[in-house]
């Protein structure tokens, strides 16, 4: 079992509320329970092994918001519902209850994130933490304190192991 919930080291704090360290099996359960989950993938996901994991997660039926230029990794994938959107715009729209989502079917209740630059996604999540009630889980390689839950800091190898475990549990 990949223990990715331990190393929650940060170099600066944002405030009193920080992400809870989490494990792949728990993330899988939360995704299953969610009514409208959204899988948000960033451009760093285009690395070969990470992309394979992301595609597999997407094929489990979770709609994908592809930020940056990550959409390139999902265009010809069968069974993947992916749309491009800028992450800063997405963060803005997610705080707006009037937004109908990427597919016009309403807003989301769980956001799962993978493949973003840590400092960047932490800022976007800061907006969601402070101005929305959304639950957010970062399953990237670095602990992201502004999410509701986050994997801890891991090595690339342990991170891939954790993603495989998440996939197995979905």
């Amino acid at each position, binding site marked *: 079992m990949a223990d990715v919930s331990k190393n929650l*080291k940060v170099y600066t704090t944002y405030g009193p509320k920080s992400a809870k360290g989490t494990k792949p099996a728990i993330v899988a359960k939360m995704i299953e329970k969610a009514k409208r989950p959204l899988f948000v993938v960033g*451009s760093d996901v285009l690395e070969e092994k990470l992309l394979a994991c992301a595609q597999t997660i997407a094929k489990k039926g979770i709609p994908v918001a592809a930020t940056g230029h990550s959409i390139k990794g999902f265009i010809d994938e069968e069974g993947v519902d992916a749309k491009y959107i800028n992450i800063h715009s997405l963060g803005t729209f997610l705080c707006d209850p009037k937004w109908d989502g990427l597919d016009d079917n309403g807003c989301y209740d769980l956001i799962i994130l993978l493949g973003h630059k840590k400092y960047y996604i932490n800022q976007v999540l800061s907006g969601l933490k402070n101005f929305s009630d959304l639950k957010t889980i970062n399953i990237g390689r670095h602990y992201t304190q502004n999410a509701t839950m986050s994997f801890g800091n891991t090595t690339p190898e342990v991170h891939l192991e954790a993603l495989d475990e998440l996939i197995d549990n979905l």
Partner: protein
Amino acid sequence: MSELKTGTFSVSDLENVQINIGSIVGAIEKTAAEEGEVGPTIKPNISGLRDWDYKLFERYNPVYTPMCDQCCYCTFGTCDLTGNKEGACGINMEGHNAREFMLRVITGASAHSGHGRHLLHHLIDKYGADYPLKVGQTNIIAPNVQMVTGKKPETLGDLEDSLSYVEEQLVQLLACVHMGQEGEAIDFESKAMHGGMLDHVGMEVSDIAQISCLEMPKADEEPPLSEIGMGTIDSEKPVLLVIGHNVAGVTDIIDYMEDNDLTENMELCGLCCTALDMTRYRTEGGDVPKAKVVGTLAKELKMIRSGVPDVIVVDEQCVRADVLREARELMMPVITTNDKIMYGLPDRSEDDVEDIIDDLKSGRDDGALILDFEKLGEVAPRLTKEMSKIRKEKGVVSLPTEEEFNELTSRCVHCLACELECPTNLPISDAMTAAEEGDLRPFEILHDKCVACGRCEQACPKDIPVLNVIEKASQKVIREERGKVRVGRGQISDPEIREEGVNLVMGTTPGIIAMVGCSNYPDGTKDLYRIADEMLRRNYIVLMSGCSAMDLGMYQNDDGETLYEKYPAKFQKGNLINVGSCVSNSHITAAAIKVAAIFAQRNITGNYEEIADYVLNRVGAVGVAWGAYSQKASSIGTGCNRLGIPVILGPHGSKYRRALIGKPYEEDKWKVLDARNGKTMDIPAAPEFLLTTAETIDEMMPMLAKNCIRPSDNNMGRMIKLTHYIELSEKYLGIIPDDWYRFVRSETDLPLARREELLKKLEQEHGWEIDWNKKKIISGPTSKLDVSAQPTNVERLCKEA
């Protein structure tokens, strides 16, 4: 009684009495009125343009991404504002973050205006208040100054009044930061916009003063090229390094070196905007630059750690706080020359030159504060020669030897603490492993990506000087860092605007891409090259300034050419212009103002709202601050935003805490009025934002094209812009954009080569009616094509209002 006018008169009955009248209350307004039309906002106060700001915020929502969830401004607190809670004083998270953003903006504006005030004092002292302003072929010497203050300055002395206005307004804005003042986010936002606007006035004052007096290029269409890069510095010669932004004192160094035949025997080089302005000094008419550019702030610590400089002179802005501490280790005396940075050094301004040199070369003092520029001009080069000899004799070296390098890389325990601390989480640990195995390439790649903040060294439990390791490993690539940067040309001339204005407003020149700001690039300097080259090949006008202008010159194509050598430098489609240093950013907004003034014959005097409305609806320009990190970058960007120019930041820009983002799905927000009759017109969502970030260069490419689209585009212009938007999206994202059809008003807006294919898509995917015999759109578009329409957001500008 005769009327008083500004100027000088003598009272003949009194001996030696001369009375100078600098300014008269109401005189500006009176003169402006006599000369022609005057707008409603001469020297607007904080609330003067609030209505305009509110119009912008109605469409472009302030979006907050706090850097800290607490407020510690007063002793009521510390207050936890998480979840938009209110603190003890009643301010909530939105309000506090709007205040924080405004504080950044006015800090940046103060830095530029403080720089301007210092320069102006110095230049008036040296050249006199009556010295004429000369900025090139133009009837509008200072577009920002004229638009905001109503004044048309002609002499150095005339600039004092505008700068006083800026200073007074900045004090009023700073007062609003105090606990118990403003309470609503939206009014902090309006105040931030005010600060941004003031910044462009302050920058313009600074730059036109120095352009006029220091024989800098004046709207020159082909200014000379200057050498740039660490590899251009001949370390065998004595090396004098200057860091900062204010060239005032450095000009005395250059003059002394020339007068004493030192130019050939010494290297004078610079970091940051002082370096750019050194290359502008006395190059009017195409003379060879008298100094070399090392690079941006990202090179400061690298250059010092290289051990190459013999003496360092600093002035102001973007100078690392540890220059003295770092230089001390390497026996490099530091001379501070401006009271904004003094490093605790003794003031030697009144002392004898020989005594200063003796104290510094003997090591009795680490450095000196010298505020007398004439003295600085002599001390710095002479000391450099002396220190070069001394440092060579003592064998001062900084970077590790081969043996030490091997020991340092093997000392690494791969705990990843450095990577966590690194602002960009660079893969330092893997590079250490590769180096141990003899492969230096990963470190060479890091050298370009690393901004040399040094935080990795602070984090390392094994005390490895990580930056030194990176630099040692990268000696080969550093030696090859030899580029060319175009010397800053200053303003865009009136004839150029006259020629190009129509193309910009109609859209047949697809847009202006202004790449400004600092060097905190997430993926190194090549990014800038990629952006500029792509957009230049597509006939956009690319304007550069400051650190971006420098870094663009660092990258060469396969033919060994920089883009400055590849593209011409007129204000014309497909041309690449460097306007100059940080304060030259005012010439970018000035160009947009001049399009309104010269092409559209709009009155700009005291007429901010109308001109900003014109720019927002008709001038397809987008700013890019890909590596922005300074407060000045936030004020420059915000000044562009108030004038209707959208700006895209790199991912680090999210740390400014606030963006201005529109919601395309809110259809009622995307409407303008037709000034001919006051009727409402639907427009597509472009510009879609005023300030946002992009995750990668690839993502930004189509964003640039899309956000140059304006309601005023004629069909040819819209077709060109839409072609670029679709092509760039396909090239960099691999998809045709979801919203491309929203920009289509008639079949003539469609890219010519793909008209049939796209008409089919409109019919099949969006349900539009097409007449296939005539290949015309019958129904579907939400916005209509009317080339005579006069789009505006300001009701009073409508004829039937």
